[in-house]
């Protein structure tokens, strides 16, 4: 037997993992769908590059102007923007995240250090990270242009800031995933999230209670939040740079030291989570069941008046899936959350920039309704993604895909209805009750937009399916082709809606928008019905693709 060196070398393993990712990418190009995915990735990458370079340029100019104007402390605004984008965007647009399940690697003799490194490397190549990195580079260039002497220091501070963001994003996902894995912690998370949203509502009244009425809102905002933000990482990074610009290096060093402390603390919390994963924790609820219960009561399935039993059964199944998916519920609640942020967050304090809905409150409800539909595309454009192996059941059962798809669309339409009602209430509460004509025009807009999205979604669900895990957070990656086409559809739909509202506003009568949108709704509904009636044929023709894609391990 030949002598073999069986020493496990981390670098060899990392090279093997990189090679694996590369082979997966290359092998995916063998199919037509894979090639289309590549084209979509290139186009989306191009959009991100434009956003990154353009944003970086803007950040650079802004940073340079702040330094030149002698107000380096305003860099905090830029760094807070970068921080919020870096952390919030992956939650709001989970389709863009790139975080495959690295825990699969644990079957190999991978050291903990390598595992940690792989997790971080996956995060480092997220489009969001690249985008925020480009913006940070813009800030670096801007500061360097205005004051070249602090360029190395700024580079150091921004590198530590980037490390913080990267660790924070990974830590958030790792912990939220942990908490969402079990029913009890999931419920606690839900309550905390609602409390967090409610707490936003207290900001305004508190600011009014403790502020002076005569002061401008922006100043009041600065006075209340400036001391708080200054001791948080984006504020500390900004302070470290600003102090260097003002030649107060010792204070700058202390800010950087505090930022480093944040990095270490966040890194520790991430380590605790990843270490548990590495040791092979089991987050299933098996262990949590303390007593064996025999439930002999009969539980009847749901009934949907006017619809067949299979439609009701699929509808019930879809609702149960959604109710058990913390990540999906979190995503679906985003429209209301965004409304609250728009109204009570810092954006409402600057009259000339962000407080759009304060100036045109009539547009708040239509915008919220449109955003609701946009969020719903996560589900509607990948109808079967969460079914995984269950797709075989659909094919084996004596039920037409027309009924199955109809039930899924009904679920999505129900969510849309509930969210629209909630949005209407939220707008009434936060701004003012939308006028009747605006409300009806917005509903007509939804009647037009929903069938368009459902039609496109039903087709893409069959032509470009992607397996999704409803229980995982930050791993809900739709097919790039789907993302691209859905963006195109949204662009057209929102464009048509805006045009209808613009025409109505031009003539001072929102009923015109209602009329236009209802006419378009008639057309889009007809298209929806035509496509729905052809779904069976398409589903049969696409069964191999669907079964292969959704049943893969």
């Amino acid at each position, binding site marked *: *037997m*030949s002598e073999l060196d069986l020493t496990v070398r981390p670098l060899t393993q990392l090279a093997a993992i990189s090679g694996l990712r590369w082979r997966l990418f290359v092998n995916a190009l063998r199919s037509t769908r894979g090639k289309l995915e590549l084209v979509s990735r290139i186009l989306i990458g191009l959009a991100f590059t434009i956003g990154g370079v353009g944003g970086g340029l803007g950040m650079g100019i802004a940073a340079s102007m702040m330094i030149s104007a002698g107000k380096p402390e305003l860099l905090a605004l830029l760094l807070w923007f970068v921080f919020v984008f870096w952390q919030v965007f992956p939650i709001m647009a989970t389709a863009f995240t790139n975080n495959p399940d690295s825990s699969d690697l644990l079957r190999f003799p991978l050291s903990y250090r390598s595992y940690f490194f792989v997790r971080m490397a996956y995060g480092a190549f997220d489009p969001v990270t690249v985008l925020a990195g480009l913006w940070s580079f813009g800030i670096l260039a801007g500061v360097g242009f205005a004051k070249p002497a602090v360029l190395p220091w700024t580079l150091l501070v921004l590198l530590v800031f980037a490390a913080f963001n990267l660790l924070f994003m990974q830590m958030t996902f790792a912990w939220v995933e942990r908490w969402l894995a079990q029913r009890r912690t999931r419920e606690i998370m839900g309550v905390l999230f609602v409390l967090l949203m409610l707490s936003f509502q207290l900001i305004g009244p508190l600011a009014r209670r403790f502020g002076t009425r005569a002061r401008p809102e922006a100043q009041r905002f600065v006075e209340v939040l400036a001391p708080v933000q200054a001791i948080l990482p984006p504020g500390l990074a900004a302070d470290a740079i600003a102090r260097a610009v003002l030649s107060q290096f010792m204070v700058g060093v202390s800010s950087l030291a505090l930022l480093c402390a944040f990095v270490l603390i966040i890194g520790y919390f991430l380590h605790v989570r990843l270490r548990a994963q590495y040791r092979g924790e089991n987050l*299933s*609820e*098996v262990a949590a*069941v303390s007593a*064996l*219960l*025999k*439930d*002999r009561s*009969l*539980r*009847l*399935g749901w*009934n949907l008046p006017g619809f067949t*039993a*299979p439609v*009701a*059964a*699929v509808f*019930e*199944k879809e609702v*149960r*899936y959604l109710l*058990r*998916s913390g990540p999906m519920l979190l995503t679906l609640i985003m429209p209301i959350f965004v409304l609250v942020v728009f109204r009570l967050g810092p954006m409402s304090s600057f009259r000339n920039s962000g407080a759009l809905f304060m100036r045109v409150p009539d547009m708040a409800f239509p915008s919220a309704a449109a955003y609701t539909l946009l969020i719903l595309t996560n589900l509607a454009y990948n109808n079967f993604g*969460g*079914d*995984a*192996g*269950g*797709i*075989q*059941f659909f*094919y*084996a*059962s*004596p*039920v*037409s895909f027309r009924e199955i798809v109809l039930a899924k669309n009904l679920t999505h339409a129900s969510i849309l209805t509930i969210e629209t009602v909630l949005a209407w209430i939220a707008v009434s509460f936060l701004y003012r009750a939308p006028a009747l004509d605006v409300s009806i025009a917005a509903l007509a807009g939804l009647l037009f937009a929903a069938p368009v999205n459902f039609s496109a979604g039903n087709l893409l669900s069959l032509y470009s399916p992607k397996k999704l895990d*409803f*229980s995982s957070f930050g791993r809900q990656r739709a097919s790039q082709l789907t993302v691209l086409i859905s963006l195109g559809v949204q662009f057209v739909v929102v464009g048509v809606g805006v045009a209808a509202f613009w025409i109505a506003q031009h003539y001072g009568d929102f009923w015109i928008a209602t009329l236009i949108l209802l006419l378009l709704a008639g057309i889009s509904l007809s298209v929806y019905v035509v496509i729905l009636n052809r779904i069976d044929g398409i589903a*049969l023709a696409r*069964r*191999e693709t669907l*079964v292969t894609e959704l*049943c893969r391990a």
Partner: protein
Amino acid sequence: MDLAPTISTQGLTRRFGELVAVDGIDLRVAPGQFFGFLGPNGAGKSTTIKMLTGLLAPTSGRIEILGVDLERNPVEVKRQIGVVPEGMALFGRLTGAEFLNFAGRMYGLNRETAAKRSAELLDFMQLADQPKKLVTDYSHGMQKKLAMAAAVIHGPKVLFLDEPFEGVDAIAAGTLKAMLQGMIARGATVFLTSHVLEIVERLCSHVAIIHQGKLVAQGSLEELRAGVEAQRPAGAGDGAGDRSLRSGEKMTLEQIFLRTVGGSRRAERELSWLG
């Protein structure tokens, strides 16, 4: 009397590009048969069962289940069959009871019947102990039992099972076997693929062997045994590395299988570095 077959195929073929996975097979399964479909890895078993259950389109050929053309009337066929495919076709984010209820209603049962049968099946399969547990948290064996329960909830006349005993412990296997034998006793037909030849030999009345996409043997165990015996020179071993049969001793299904597909056990001579 030659009964009309429950399952029949004519020239059933499936190509994947250049590869002919199933090559013009003509199957014939009579009512009430416990039919084992055997073959080495990659022989075309799963591809065949997928085509028989409508999960995969044949490239050519014809399939009739209970006298109904599958391609022309897929819904009518699916109404009368039960399927446990390779991936088990479960919905992981439902509880066992919810899944069975769902399955029952998809097969056209009313709400009360679906709920009643779900409860009975969960009890029979010994899955009723943890009603709030999601299917995704079930063990492999529990998932197999649940998949089987979902496949029979509507009382199918034909049951297709792809590797039903794979990864199932002896207790669960016993439960499944009892249920299948009960179905056969009531006149249903069971078509299963399995690698565990001992189980097939014990359960199945009829067997077909597929090799490299072609059907190489089909019939009752006795017919297959007689066919292989007829080809074997008197007093010779089975040619597949097994011992010679003593006079009067019957060939096992494993011996029949190995002779039919020309298998041999050369592993001892290879991979000398192992261990």
